[in-house]
């Protein structure tokens, strides 16, 4: 690769692909393993032609057996390889739950530091693409309860590259969530060359003074759209992109809330027990006397899944207009 000098415009798919390619190129220990990652080149064409260049021993097609994908990758990671496992859609991750939670996340602790598990599990998640029950799910809350597991969910191409590099470098398991609606929708400048963004650091995507909005994934883009629209009404909203779900950047959230005194958390995952619940509790514990309004969460209703029919999908998702309404109410409160 060229020395870091400029940047290129990429969408999120291209950012993931470019980063994976660099990792395969730069380190022989890197292995990609998953369903259709080889000959098919991934369902979103992220690893297209990788198998031709790196061969079937480093780009491994597996049967439809998620527990095996992660289980094999855990073993590879413990024995010195740098596996990047792919779960084709986050909706299919459940069979691998034990391998992720029971094995990968506990490896370092269980072996008293003798073994680590430098494993990345990439998976597309999220809805808004008419993906219906089994191609729309958000899984972060199912995993963020687990110490020993890092979870990142970047929204911008430059963050995708920096955080995926950090995840690959990380000595412990990282669940890398890619919002599938942002894959080709979101474009941005991506710096050339190798760089990392520290896992656990949020990013203030827009500064404001009257309300703090915390979000991640697709909804960061929609929250920014809403906040920018409110700027025309003279309302000043700060938008924080978590980027990392665990570890969570408590400092960034608290600093912002202490400034604006109001907090709105927006996420696509269900409200009950979601990421917003943890953020709310943390802010209530740390900054209650700085709050000038009740904390509010805008999140999906507690229904079992996102329906296929468009009205059902729209009902499940929050729109930029709904986000703007919530923001407006909170600023004016």
């Amino acid at each position, binding site marked *: 690769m060229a020395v870091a000098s400029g940047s290129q415009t990429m969408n999120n798919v291209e950012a993931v692909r470019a980063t994976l390619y660099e990792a395969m190129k730069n380190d022989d220990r890197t292995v990609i393993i998953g369903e259709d990652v080889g000959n098919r080149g991934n369902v979103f064409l992220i690893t297209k032609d990788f198998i031709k260049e790196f061969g079937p021993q480093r780009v491994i097609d597996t049967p439809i057996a998620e527990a095996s994908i992660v289980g094999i990758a855990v073993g590879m990671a413990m024995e010195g390889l740098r596996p990047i496992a792919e779960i084709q859609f986050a909706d299919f991750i459940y069979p691998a739950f034990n391998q992720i939670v029971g094995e990968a996340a506990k490896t370092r602790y269980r072996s008293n530091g003798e073994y680590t598990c430098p494993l990345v599990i990439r998976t597309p998640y999220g809805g808004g693409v008419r993906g219906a029950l089994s191609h729309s799910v958000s899984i972060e809350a199912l995993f963020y309860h687990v110490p020993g597991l890092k979870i990142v969910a970047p929204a911008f191409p430059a963050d995708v590259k920096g955080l995926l590099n950090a995840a690959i470098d990380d000595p412990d398991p990282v669940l890398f969530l890619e919002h599938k609606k942002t894959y080709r929708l979101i474009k941005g400048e991506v710096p050339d060359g190798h760089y990392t963004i520290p896992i656990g650091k949020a990013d203030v995507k827009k500064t404001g003074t009257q309300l703090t909005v915390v979000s991640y994934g697709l909804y960061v883009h929609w929250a920014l759209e809403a906040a920018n629209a409110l700027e025309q009404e003279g309302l000043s909203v700060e938008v924080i992109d978590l980027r990392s779900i665990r570890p969570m950047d408590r400092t960034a959230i608290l600093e912002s809330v202490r400034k604006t*005194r109001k907090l709105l958390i927006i996420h696509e995952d269900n409200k009950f027990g979601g990421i917003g619940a943890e953020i709310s509790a943390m802010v209530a514990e740390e900054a*209650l*006397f*700085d*709050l*000038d*309004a*009740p904390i509010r969460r805008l999140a999906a209703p507690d229904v079992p899944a996102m329906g296929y029919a468009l009205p059902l999908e729209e009902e499940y998702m929050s729109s930029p207009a709904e986000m703007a309404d919530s923001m407006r*109410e909170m600023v*004016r*409160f």
Partner: protein
Amino acid sequence: MATTITMPQLGETVTEGTVERWLKQPGESVEKYEAFVEVSTDKVNSEVPAPVTGTLREILVQEGTTVATGTAIAIIEEVGAVPAASAAKAASPGAAASVTEPPKTREAMAASANLEPVPGFNLPEMPVQHAGNGHARVAPPEASSETSLRGVSPAVRKLAREHRVDVRSIRGTGANGRVTAQDVLAAASAAPAPAAAPPAKTAAAPPLKPGTSTYGEPIPGTLIPLTSARRIIAERMVESKHTAPHAWSMVEVDVTNVWKWRAREKDAFERASGYKLTLLPFFIRAVVESLAVYPLMNARFTPDGILVERDVNIGIAIGLPTNLVVPVVKGADKLSIKGLAIASGELIDKARRNKLSADDLQSGTFTVNNNGANGSYASAPIINGGQAGIVTMETVVKKPVVTADEAIAVRSMMNVCLSLDHRVVDGYVASGFLADLKKRLEAMGPSGIL
């Protein structure tokens, strides 16, 4: 049917209580026997159980307010009952109208926010109006979801305290006239000298800086609001020092043998009872025996004469992070060392879990303060009001001591300090009591029956 809840009488001598905290807010449901309000008297906090199942309709006494026992503090609407407000509306449109009248609404909002009295500014009296049931009461807040949105936020409370601004003097610019944090800051910069605070007080008050200071986490340069426990301790200490002329004496006691006895018994005792065996029960045992010889030390000064107590109830001073409590071992003279160890262990355990009842804290006739745990060598304790004296156990130290046969031996020594109410006894009695106590402690152990 509406049930009026009154301030309970927590203890036979208690005449008033303070509403510490409402555990339920108007509109919330309560189960029979479920705690719905925390009330404090003297030094004890008690949760009051609901006498009926229903919905808390109204709070009549705000947090931090002290009222006489028997005063109505809340109204609970029993399950299935028609809310009296809607009944009143039907019967008397005028009465209901006054409830929803806009000017009242803002005050109701402020009232519902449970503003604590803040040093540095005075809150005006809560607006009262007379409802059909004859109770003087604060105008009730509107629908509960509205109320929570319209209360005074924590940030507003904090800023108002810091800038000494009376929230009710501010015209709110938030939703439905709510006072926002920005409004407080604007008011503070507009009026640097708050009208509500008397000038003299303002001058004397320490400068307030941002930050929420508590007794547990004191921040330099801030004022910690008094809790009722802190206020009561302050009043009691001043009262005792002002009314009871304190005299002080100390003896040095050889506790080598009783210390050995304790060491021998402590593991078995802890296994059997679950409580640690400290020197305290041995000491209390010696104290009650000495009190039996010197009943004047178990007495109190009254204007009519020296009242010699019939019972021997020993208070144990226990320091907690935020305040001192003195629970009482009742009938201590009738308990063995083992009985005293269990009784005192229970009380210490309850004190640390903040579970002492009003009853645990009253009727003390003499007090023991185990002061030596942190190495104190001598101390001058303040007498608990209404008692003749207080003794302390100081730290046990090994020292070279000249024994009766003029040899030098290493012995475990402990100072015992006594403060006495000189109105009740003179030095003659007090020193006799101390000498007797010393003799008894030195005679204990190195073995025996607990």
